[in-house]
């Protein structure tokens, strides 16, 4: 038939099927080898919070599930291409296009798996967002283009009200010196917390949306102007950890870094004491 598909010899077409099958399997194999290699070099940064342990565990479960599906589906795809390449004019495709049992089977397995993941994920999410323990320390986090400030209540445990529109040099966060609880409040450029002590954050932004991201704590929460988001976590490893901004916030987005220091209770007390009375 002139102008129709160019006739290809059966051997050639089958050969093409084998080649494409090998390509698909090469992608599968490449992805597996790359992932195996990445686990040693480019995987999660060291874990340092109690919630993070739960998150990593759930990640591991989902990772196992999707790895199995990934391997099975890509391998089957390759197998279909390998086996069912055209084998000449005489050979014809099977007229097979319904199979109730197969369809019910794979729908049920998929649905059950996903319901299980939903239950696991939902319960962890509600734990992450549960009420903070009574012994949690409170720190107010204020984001702005392009930096972070951390507002501590001081020994009296009372956070003075901030007024971000009055925030300027000499009056950090716009805290009025005669405001209740203001006298001993501390405003720091780095976040210092005690190890194994839950820390309750009140996250807010002065200008645009930022996102408070501490990779080692598996912790991220947007800072939204006009709103205070309350959330907590428990650091379980002492050390110094990076804080990044994860929400595009302007030209300096990539330099909006800070540091989280997780210290012993004694170090924490001496850090607090290092601020002269009325450190504002």
């Amino acid at each position, binding site marked *: 038939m002139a102008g129709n598909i160019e006739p290809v010899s059966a051997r050639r077409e089958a050969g093409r099927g084998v080649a494409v099958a090998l390509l698909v399997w090469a992608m599968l194999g490449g992805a597996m080898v790359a992932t195996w290699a990445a686990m040693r070099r480019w995987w999660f940064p060291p874990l340092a919070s109690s919630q993070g342990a739960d998150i990593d565990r759930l990640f591991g479960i989902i990772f196992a599930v999707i790895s199995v599906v990934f391997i099975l589906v890509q391998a089957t795809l390759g197998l279909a291409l390998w086996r*069912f390449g055209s084998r000449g004019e005489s050979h014809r495709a099977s007229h097979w296009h*319904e199979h109730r049992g*197969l369809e019910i089977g794979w729908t049920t397995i998929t649905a059950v798996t996903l319901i299980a993941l939903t239950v696991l994920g939902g319960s962890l999410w509600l734990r992450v967002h549960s009420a903070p323990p009574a012994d949690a320390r409170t720190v107010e986090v204020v984001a702005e283009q392009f930096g972070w400030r951390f507002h501590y209540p001081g020994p009296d445990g009372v956070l003075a009200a901030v007024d971000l529109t009055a925030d300027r040099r000499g009056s950090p966060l716009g805290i009025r010196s005669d405001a209740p609880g203001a006298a001993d409040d501390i405003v720091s450029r780095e976040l210092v917390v005690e190890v194994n002590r839950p820390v309750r954050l009140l996250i807010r932004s002065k200008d*645009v949306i930022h996102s408070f991201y501490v990779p080692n704590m598996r912790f991220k929460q947007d800072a939204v102007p006009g709103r205070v988001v309350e959330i907590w976590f428990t650091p379980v490893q002492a050390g110094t950890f990076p804080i990044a901004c994860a929400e595009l916030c302007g030209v300096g987005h990539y330099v909006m870094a800070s540091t989280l220091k997780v210290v012993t209770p004694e170090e924490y007390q001496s850090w607090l004491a290092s601020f002269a009375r009325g450190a504002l």
Partner: protein
Amino acid sequence: MAVLEQDVRAAHEEQHRESLVRRYIFSQDHKVIGIQYLATSFLMALIGGVLAMVIRLELGWPGSVINQGSYLSTVTMHGTIMVFYVLSTALTGGFGNYLVPLQIGARDMAFPFLNMLSYWLYALSLIPLVAAFFAPGGAPMSGWTAYTPLSAVPQAAPGSGIGQSLWLLSLAILIVAFLFGSLNVITTVMQLRARGMSMMRMPLTVWGLFITAILSLLSFPVLLAAGIMLLFDRHLGTTFFLPAGSVIGGKVIAAGGGDPLLWQHLFWFLGHPEVYILILPGMGIVSDIIANNARKPVFGYPVMVLTMAVIAFLSFLVWGHHMFVSGMHPMLGTAFMATTLIIAVPSAIKTFNWLATMWRGKIRFTPQMLFAIGFVSVFVTGGLTGLMLGNPAVDMYLHDTYFVVAHFHFVMASASLFGVFAGLYHWFPKMFGRALDERLGRLHFWLALPTTYATFFPMHFAGLAGMPRRIYSTQLYGYLQGLEGLNRFISVAAFVLFVAHMIFAVNVVYSLAKGRRVAENPWQATTLEWTTSSPPPHGNWGEREVVVYRWAYDYSLPEAAQDFVPQNVPVEAPVTAVARQAGGQVAPATG
């Protein structure tokens, strides 16, 4: 229905006498408009692709080519152009216009004038879009999602000046174009199907485009409203998205009352259906191409239709999974997690059905089949990581990192693009009467699939290591220092990927001039567009009336002489007649 049909035909006869300008520039012929949409989309893809190369240059060699502000403009415009001005327009405007009337046996779209308007609004929208690059302060820097207040207050970023307003204006015009287009597709499918073409006989390509049109019609107006509200905030002093008591770029927002989360809800109410707007047409196209090249009926056709409808319905209920860490109430997060994971069920079923369609087939490895295979492969790879991101506690870590970039570049960008390429290799002969060069097509695929994996798969690792999106440089953060080599590798792979897609551009130019001439039905396909000449005349079938007798997948019927029976061949016809008619004769208008 009949009256409408006559109107369309009358309009066409009129058009035959019209000038070249009316025929090929301000044309009301759905085929010309479809090709116009495709050509313009590819022009925009070139711009979007070059912007991607600039991003990769910067991330591979930080600080070498571009400053911080321009980098954010590049990221913003790359995303905007690729999502709205390339993939959406190529699939809904390009394939939607070209294929829907041809595959349902109509002579044109229901509203040809509206259709012409739709394309020219798209063309018009490109003027403010491109002008944004040259605005004082440059193109917008707030990402394709344009989160407020960054996008609302000019003081917030240099690109949040006039560039952002031009961006909004362009998007608003484009949305009107999409609305005209989707109204047209819906009406055409509902009203202009040929005799015998029941809904359940439609090819899955038409189903994909039809359901996509419904999605567009219901979701784009929300973004249009949001965009207009944002323009009001920017220019008329309203504060829909601005809270009181903030200070942005030194400007005190005293009278507020708005909420930045409102923008996110409105944006993602479109934004999530949008990713299905980009994938459903591809799913339909790929289903048909796999059936045609495996010489087998699509496996589980009714389920394929149902799963598309379920995906479309659920896509309106999942937008909050973009907002797990936005400050939205955590209980809402739980609800959105449930709908998000449920939507994976129909997606998985579709994948299994594609595999079953190939299974026990007689597969031809044409370039369109290769890209359809690539579609399945990258769709699975990208779809699976959605189960991680859809889980809010895990998303807490992965949100706004390169893991997300990897995820959507597989499942939405690459899969959708592979769908577009598969469709082009398949229907190019119908559009131009000449096939794309097969050898170049194979080369294109053999380079594109490995480099797609090499580019986007390692991005998962950058994300797991904690690399945020949209950062100008990884140099600042100590914990990202080890990613330099990884990022260079990704950049080099991306450059090769760009070259691979350029092969397609070469192929188009070469094949338009020198491509192999083809007959009506070069792929021995069953659907109606292959029963008319290549390219089809105005009105698609001349004086013949199109009547449909069977579904779109009568491949390898055991009792038929050939391994395909076109939809217009009567069921009661003797087997020998089937063989003669298979070349594309249209059944007589009886019954």
